[in-house]
């Protein structure tokens, strides 16, 4: 991390006001690399991750290259990831490629990425390199015909909270943060070099009509089922969390009541004693007597809420697309 920080400072020394990234330029080669990485190493619900390299230009972040984290198994536990990254970056630098660490990417399974792990690592990235982003690649949607890449950053509010590590209900309340304000999405523009554009034009002319029309695929239930299943799991978690919180708050209020009663009694007693001219009872440590129950950390709940929101968005998007397709199909049938 130290290393990264230094790197960052040395290179992006002039850009102190990068807190608000407006745009993210993504080079197509990065996209292809990510897709390739997933196709080679990730399957099912397994997740692949990698490092994004690039540089900050004005208020936009240009991601020009990337490299994957190696899939490491249990046996080579002594594998040093940081070392590997440093090596990689050094090597890339040698071939004159942008070698500045500006974030990381991760694949996702049906849009389930809002997790504690992601939060923690993104926090450490953003803490070290202010403008770093996390790029979420959804291979399943991509396979259906529409490339799905999203760039997220933690909001400054969330950064504050994470810095303080105060996940108690009060802390979150004070910060006034909801699941909507946890992440901010950064718009992505995919940029090609002119040479590539030229090549594409040429290819378009040469190639016949694409054989595959995944985009028009009508069978939707599988995807929906999966999403629903995941959504249901999260809802269950949420339920549990709420029950936990409920118990906590009930205990808390009960204890408050007891405390209150105790204080009142003590006050009365003291008043009596005073009237009799005796010294008042010594004040005891009330907090010792009534230890408040351990408040449940609310961050997880927040994350789950965020995840549920994410799923819902996904399903919504998916269904609206599908509805459109269905209408199209109907119209086609009517036409025939």
């Amino acid at each position, binding site marked *: 991390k130290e290393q990264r920080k230094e790197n960052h400072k040395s290179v992006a020394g002039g850009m102190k006001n990068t807190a608000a990234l407006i745009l993210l330029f993504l080079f197509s080669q990065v996209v292809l690399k990510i897709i390739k990485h997933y196709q080679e190493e990730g399957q099912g619900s397994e997740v692949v991750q990698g490092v994004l390299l690039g540089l900050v230009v004005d208020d936009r972040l240009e991601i020009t290259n990337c490299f994957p984290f190696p899939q490491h198994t249990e046996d080579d536990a002594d594998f040093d990831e940081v070392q590997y990254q440093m090596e990689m970056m050094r090597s890339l630098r040698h071939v004159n490629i942008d070698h500045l660490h500006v974030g990381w990417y991760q694949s996702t399974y049906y849009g389930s990425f809002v997790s504690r792990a992601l939060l923690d690592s993104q926090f450490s990235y953003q803490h070290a390199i202010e403008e770093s982003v996390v790029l979420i690649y959804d291979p399943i949607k991509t396979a259906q015909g529409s490339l799905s890449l999203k760039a997220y950053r933690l909001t400054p509010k969330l950064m504050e909270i994470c810095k303080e590590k105060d996940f108690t209900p009060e802390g979150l309340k004070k910060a006034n943060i909801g699941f909507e304000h946890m992440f901010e999405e950064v718009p992505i523009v995919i940029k090609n070099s002119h040479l590539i554009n030229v090549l594409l034009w040429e290819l378009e002319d040469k190639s016949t009509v694409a054989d595959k029309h995944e985009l028009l695929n009508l069978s939707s*239930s599988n995807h*929906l*089922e999966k999403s*629903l*299943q995941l*959504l*249901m799991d999260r*809802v*269950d978690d*949420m*339920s549990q969390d*709420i*029950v936990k*919180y*409920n118990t906590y*708050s*009930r205990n808390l*209020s009960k204890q408050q009541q007891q405390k209150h009663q105790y204080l009142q009694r003590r006050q009365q007693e003291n008043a009596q004693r005073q009237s009799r001219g005796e010294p008042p009872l010594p004040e005891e440590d009330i907090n010792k007597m009534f230890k408040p129950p351990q408040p449940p950390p609310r961050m997880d709940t927040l994350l789950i809420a965020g995840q549920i929101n994410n799923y819902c968005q996904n399903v919504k998007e998916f269904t609206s697309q599908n509805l459109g397709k269905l209408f199209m199909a109907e119209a086609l049938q009517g036409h025939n």
Partner: protein
Amino acid sequence: MSRFFATGSDSESEESSSADEITPKAPGTTFKQSLLLSDDEEDTKRVVRSAKDKRFEELTNLIKTIRNAMKIRDMAKCLEEFEQLCRAFLKSKNIVDKEGVPPFYIRLLADLEDYLNQLWEDKEGKKKMNKNNAKALSTLRQKIRKYNRDYETEIAAYKENPQESADEEEEKEPEDSGASSESEAEDGDEGVSAKAFLKKKPEAAPEASKFLKSAKGSGDESTSSDEDDDEDWGSDTVDSGSESSDEGEGKSASLAVVFLKKTHDADKSSEKKLGKKKKPKKKERLEEEAEEEGGEEVEGGWEKVKGGVPLVKEKPKMFAKGTEINTAVVVKKLNEILQARGKKGTDRAAQIELLHALAAIAAENNLGQGILVKIKFNIIASLYDYNPNLAAFMKADMWKKCLDCIDELLDILFENNNIFIGENIAEDSENLGVSDQPFRVRGCVLTLVERMDEEFTKIMQNTDPHSQEYVDNLKDEGRVCGIIDRLLTYLENKGSTEEICRVYLRRIMHTYYKFDYKAHRRSLGLQGESKSEQDQEESEGEDSAVIMDRLCKFIYAKDRTDRIRTCAILCHIYHHALHSRWYQARDLMLMSHLQDNIQHADPPVQILYNRTMVQLGICAFRQGMIKDAHNALLDIQSSGRAKELLGQGLLMRNMQERNAEQEKIEKRRQVPFHMHINLELLECVYLVSAMLLEIPYMAAHEFDARRRMISKQFHHQLRVGERQPLLGPPESMREHVVAASKAMKMGDWRTCHSFIINEKMNSKVWDLFPETQRVREMLVRKIQEESLRTYLFTYSSVYDSISMETLSEMFELEIPTVHSIISKMIINEELMASLDQPTQTVVMHRTEPTSLQNMALQLAEKLGSLVENNERVFDLKQGVYGGYFNRDQKGGYQQKQSYQRDQKGSYQQKQQGYQRGGYRNQNQGNY
């Protein structure tokens, strides 16, 4: 000591029979007292003597060990024993005070001191000794020096004349070992008492007094002697009679019985000898005592009495020949005998004998039935008393005797209408003698018979059910029933309603579990009539159903204690169920509301309730009411403790959880084997009904994530079946059912049928039903129907339409049946289809929700609960004001669980649950 009383009585009774001048003993005093106070001087002297003997023997024994230890130079042992000796000597101080210090004791002291001194001088030897021994030697030496200071004169005397003292002791020793020789010698000079008393009395008196005072079982005397007796006993059995007898006396009564057998013969022979010798000499008082003893104190002499049958015959002469035997005397005698009842040392067997004898005398002298009844009562009571332990059961001969006695008692009661018996007749208002007035006797036949019944149960519980013995014992059941019947007729005339209720319940208890084959045959159309004379005879008499009905109704009307009525109802239901009168049984069960509060009843009633429920379930099964059968059996079968719940055995795994005491109690609750309900039959019935319910249900709810199990146990069996790595042909009943279930899942009723009904299953289960054939037919039909349902559930998605004719062929059901089944499914919304009448086909609608839809439903449900939870949090903050979520709707979520709860609830509730509609209906209604 017991043995000695026994001998005493034997020999004495011999005497008394030959003696002419017997004075009736003074009435009023208790036996023990008279025994104790009979002769003061003699008594005291005897006490001293006996104690002395015992003490001295103890001492000599110790001395022997010391001498042995001396010989092998084991100083440690020597020291130990010497300390013991000192203690023992101190204990017998009062005897020593009287008798003077025994010479053998002095001798030992002197010898020991000499010996120690000698060892002490022998420096080299001392060096060789190990540390322990050396230490012991020095301590012992100091001790003995100090100790001997007290006995200086005696020791000096001994040292002067060692020979004499030694002789004395040697004299003493043969005395100990040769009982008979000694006794003969003493016989001569004792004049007063026969030799038997010499040994017997001295011991008896203190012992008896001890028992009387009910001081802790054994005083120090007996305990101290017990200690070494116990060690010595095994090897010393060969010892002479007197020694062993000494030891025997020290024992508590039970021990005495044990050891009795060993010394029995020796004793007997010596006793016989003694008896002969005594004859010429006797005193009146002595005889009287002897007689009393004979009457009372034949403790533990049980074996003895049995052995000497001829003697026993002569014994019952309890009254002096000359006495006029009248009621008063007999009553008095009876009271005397009874006073000993329940006391610790009383020989119960002998008491019974005595009472018998008394009864015989009473009968001989025509004292009237009153007294006879009274005596009979007591005989039976003491027969029951014979076993001090509640858990122990009567021995066969006792049992027979008991039955005979009760029979006789009932005979008398029947013959003599003028005898009034009752528990509440006071002892002094009894009228036993005056025959022109009605006799009034205290006692309760009912209690006796009830106790008899319990004893019978106990006997059956304690007999190995697979032995011939059990069958033999079971034969007595008829007699027990007979007695109860007779009592019933007797009480119907004379008893109060409560008593009638009680005896009715007894009768019911002996009737309810028996299948009435006569009635069964009769209901089948009197085929049995032509068979034989005997059959015809058998088929006469009331149906048990009629009897049950009469008795139970009487109890329902008259009984005031809840328990008897509850039992009667349960038995009645059981009986109905056993005879396949399902509706009567069910109605009675529902009307009685027993299910609501049976958990408050005592365990035996609960066991009866469980038995009844099981029988009810089996009955429902026979009638083809699978759901009812399943529901009735669910509670018992789901716990996995059916055996325990039915009182048919204890579960091993509970061993740690309960202690021995609880186990005993539980054992006592067990139902005798002949009343058992076959557990395999029970389980099979349950599993088959579960299969018939569960398989179609599973097929219908294949995609339903929230589907519940109807029967956990059945699922468990299925899972066990699935876990099998290699599936062979089914062996056990369970495997058969599992295999059948699998076949049924595929809608393959033929295979299912062949698994459920085949030779193996017939012999294991189905043949146990009285109407086997009918049950099997019912079962086949059920299998066909449920297979059809399962088939439709499973494969409806494959068909667009299906002809009912095909279905009827496939399942070998008539078209109307198929039609009705399908209609029912359509009405219950289990099958989304409609019937096309003209073509006789079922047209599928294909409106089954897709898995996605199912999923969405589930999600909706989950969200519902989430909102509910969330609302609770909200409530806490805002205070309860209903929130925005409608309470009624909330109820709807809970209702969904109602199916499960229904099952757990009482039987009645379950029924309603089922009648409300199919499972599916209930579940779907709430979405």
